[in-house]
């Protein structure tokens, strides 16, 4: 099987990029895999991609400092808006423009892939509009339904339903999307497909270092200022503990200002981006998630993989599906900073509980091992491939 992933910019850092590269690196052992990046945003991808995975860049991103000099037609087209992408989606990611849209249409018309998977709403729209019946067309949603703006919701309802399937990260999401689309919850068109954890070997935290870790882009939805405020209660009682936040982004100045406001300059470290988040988490004793919303959080899974319990807001929807409260971590009242502080303090003060939860967390992480998720994809795609083969009149041999 040849499977192609459509992604905005595989050279960046973010949950969708990490999830897609992890999956591609797992699928490549048995299949042909191509990652199609709407724009190239850097010289090298931030996350490791197996050299056997083919990388195809449709355009050179305008933000890429080393990009080749564009010709006049390229310059003209890349400043024109994409016509078929929801405006909110186009505003969120600059890779959508007339140039990249045209390049993607060409790709979709000519690809020899058996399966094309789009990884965000704007790409789902383009795949639904311009994909062909020669291959299986799958849309992926990495965001909760509640996070989608109105124009994206309209596209999901009117366009994405033309796809051969839509995958979401959690069962809660599946229920929400089914309700929104007026489909029964059991409809196989909507499928829960968790993100995959890359193959190890993983380190295992000793759970003795006085370090609490968090990771993710420094953007408003992660609510790191709230995390810093909650951590202030930990630092007051346990000044030897440190909070490390991994990631980069627009919110850095706001987080720094909160750090200073609470006098935590010696205790909170903005660590920058980490290519190997799990290895960094293994040095910590607690991982914390302060997001307003989370999909199937890779951060939580990476904490689990290295045996670290996670304290998280009980926000929609991912944390609740991953964290078994009091067994693998603590789910605290959503958006309650005092509760987040109390959760961290509880684990700071009880090493035995950290050990018990850490051991159980490792078992949870195994369920999301890339091999398990690859098998889940194969099982999911088999009937869709058979149907497409019939539709296109091609003879195919399954299993692969």
């Amino acid at each position, binding site marked *: 099987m040849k499977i192609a992933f459509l992604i905005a910019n595989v050279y960046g850092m973010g949950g969708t990029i990490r999830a897609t590269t992890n999956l591609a690196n797992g699928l490549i052992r048995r299949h042909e895999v191509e990652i199609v990046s709407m724009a190239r945003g850097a010289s090298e991808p931030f996350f490791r991609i197996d050299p056997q995975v083919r990388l195809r860049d449709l355009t050179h991103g305008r933000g890429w400092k080393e990009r080749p000099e564009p010709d006049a037609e390229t310059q003209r087209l890349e400043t024109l808006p994409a016509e078929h992408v929801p405006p909110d989606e186009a505003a969120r990611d600059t890779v959508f423009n007339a140039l990249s849209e045209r390049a993607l249409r060409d790709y979709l018309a000519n690809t020899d892939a058996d399966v094309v998977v789009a990884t965000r709403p704007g790409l789902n729209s383009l795949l639904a509009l311009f994909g062909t019946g020669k291959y299986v067309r799958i849309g992926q949603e990495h965001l909760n339904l509640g996070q989608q703006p109105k124009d994206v919701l309209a596209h999901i309802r009117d366009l994405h339903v033309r796809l051969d399937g839509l995958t979401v990260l959690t069962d809660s999401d599946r229920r929400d999307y089914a309700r929104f689309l007026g489909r029964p919850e059991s409809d196989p068109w909507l499928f829960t497909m968790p993100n995959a954890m890359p193959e*190890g*070997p*993983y*380190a*295992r*935290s*000793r759970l*003795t*270092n*006085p*370090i609490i870790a968090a990771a993710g882009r420094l953007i408003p939805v992660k609510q790191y200022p709230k995390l810093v405020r909650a951590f202030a209660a930990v630092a007051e009682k346990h000044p030897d503990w440190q909070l490390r936040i991994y990631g980069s982004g627009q919110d850095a100045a706001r987080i*720094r200002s909160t*750090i*200073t406001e609470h006098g935590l*300059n*010696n205790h909170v*470290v*903005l*660590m*920058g981006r980490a*290519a*190997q988040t799990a*290895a960094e988490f*293994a*040095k910590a004793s607690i991982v914390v998630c302060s997001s307003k919303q989370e999909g199937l959080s890779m951060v939580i899974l990476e904490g689990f993989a*290295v045996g670290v319990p996670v304290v998280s807001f009980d926000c929609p929807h991912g944390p609740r599906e991953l964290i078994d409260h009091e067994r693998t971590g603590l789910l605290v009242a959503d958006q309650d900073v005092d509760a987040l502080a109390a959760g961290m303090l509880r684990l700071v003060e009880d090493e035995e509980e950290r050990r018990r939860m850490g051991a159980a967390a490792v078992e949870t992480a195994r369920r999301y091992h890339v091999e398990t998720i690859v098998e889940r994809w194969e099982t999911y795609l088999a009937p869709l491939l058979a149907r497409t083969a019939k539709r296109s009149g091609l003879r195919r041999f399954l299993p692969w």
Partner: protein
Amino acid sequence: MRVDVSRIVDGDVLELELLDRTAEDAHLLLLPTGKNKGVVEAIPLPLDIKDGTAHADLARAEIPPGTWVVRWVEAGKKRPIITSDPCYDVAEVARALSRPAGRRHLPLRTSDGRLRIQVRQTRPYARIERVDVAESEITLAGILAYGPALRGPAELVARQRGLSGELRVPATVDGSRFGVTVPLAPLADAHVLERPHNEWDLTLVLPDSGTDLHVGTHDDDIVGRKGRFSYPEVLVESASGRLRVRPYYTVKDHLAILAVANSPAEAPA
């Protein structure tokens, strides 16, 4: 060989908790890498193996500074050591800092889980553990790293980088801990407006020990503190006008103080 724990105990002994069975006559082989590759010979290292735990005395081997690939050698066959240990232990760092200067041995875990050993030549320095910025002063607290024999009295010397300004402030030394409060008014008075930034480099001087210690923070797993740790700035009045002053880490993780005129100007992060 897979190991669950790979850590340094008693200062210089590598302890490995083994997950695979092994013959008792197994030993380690350290292979030079980086700057030592092709320059220094591989070093065989005997092991004391008992009840699933192996110990290797690294001090006795007198390993040259550098990073070393570690191989498990058994029945004439060499194989890498895959460790589950994150190889970073805050308590071990504290123990190492309290020892005299010399060679420090650190286990490292590569991105694919392989064990390496790093050997560093250490020398004493004034390790910052806390920085507090107040309206007119900056207070520093820390330890005399790798200097258990060092004793006070001590003073902090702030030198104006590239200029002649110098400020000396008495510091307290209590055992291995030191503390000092730097008044900002003298730094402001010495400010040279012609330079967009006035940086003040810090040294802790212990005359009785004949030692000048650079002031900074090293030896944990955070290399590159500039931009990762940030401290508030304060406005200080001076004859040159109002200045913005704050402590910051240099690219070498030394702590310094920055003063700039209170007008938009490019400053180090």
